[in-house]
């Protein structure tokens, strides 16, 4: 099994490409998170808000991106997780999740993280500071 300590600066964790974003994904996230803002689930409400269609919750994408780190919880935990929401995620978009080692300390590893759409555009971009146990 790979350990997170093995990754070197400049190396990337295995990428994950999500299935095309579906309405059901967003309905499930609305229910699980309690964020029922209708621009994420109801076409007419999204249009009224001036959007071409419903958009994913930014937090849905941020939540997905964090799963790149789930396999490493025996070695440490996500101490800091920061993202900027760069652009919108629409239905049927294909999102790829990425993390690259930026800096390695004795007790922490800093990653650049991003969620990128099918056009190569960053939709979410940020940093994860992973704290290592002794």
């Amino acid at each position, binding site marked *: 099994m790979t350990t997170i300590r093995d990754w070197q600066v400049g190396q990337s964790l295995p990428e994950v490409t*999500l299935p095309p974003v579906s309405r059901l*994904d967003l309905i*499930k*996230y609305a*229910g*699980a*998170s*309690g*964020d029922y803002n209708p621009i994420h689930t109801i076409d007419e409400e999204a249009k009224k*808000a001036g959007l071409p269609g419903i958009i994913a919750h*930014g*937090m*849905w994408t*941020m*939540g*997905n991106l*964090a*799963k790149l*780190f*789930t*396999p490493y*919880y*025996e070695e440490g*935990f*996500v*101490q*800091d*997780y*920061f*993202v*900027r*929401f760069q652009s919108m995620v629409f239905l049927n978009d294909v999102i790829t999740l990425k993390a690259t080692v930026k800096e390695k300390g004795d007790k922490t590893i800093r990653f650049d993280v991003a969620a990128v759409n099918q056009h190569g555009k960053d939709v979410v971009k940020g940093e994860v500071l992973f704290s290592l*146990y002794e």
Partner: protein
Amino acid sequence: MYQHDIGRRSTKVKNVVERGAVKKFAEAIGDPNPIYWDEETGKRSRYGRNIAPPTFPRVFDYGVIEGLKLPAKGLIHGEQRFHYERPLFVGEELYCYAEVKDYYEKQSSMGLLGFLVIANNGEDPDGNLVFTSTSTIIMNEAVRKAMSV
């Protein structure tokens, strides 16, 4: 216009990291890792129990910041940050509250934008901070005017 709200806090609300809620949340972000929901996996882990995903604090109740009025529509979630002292444990009790951390305005190509920074904090029953979740919310001129408060 929100400058006078900086420092305002809600009263702490008791929340429980509920097992079913964690499982549903993990499913909703497509993370099937059993560390979140399988009791045996949790017991065998270094935590001795199940934990919650890092963006899970979105589901907690942080109470209401008295006097803070937000527009019902047109808010843009610009940035989000989580800081943890340790992961959240399934079944634990947390005392959560919200606080207005900052408000500033910036000129942009879309006019004058307002940036409201709200921190959502969670403490253990002894009052130790477990996590802080900080959201930056962006409001354009039209949204602020529509509020007319």
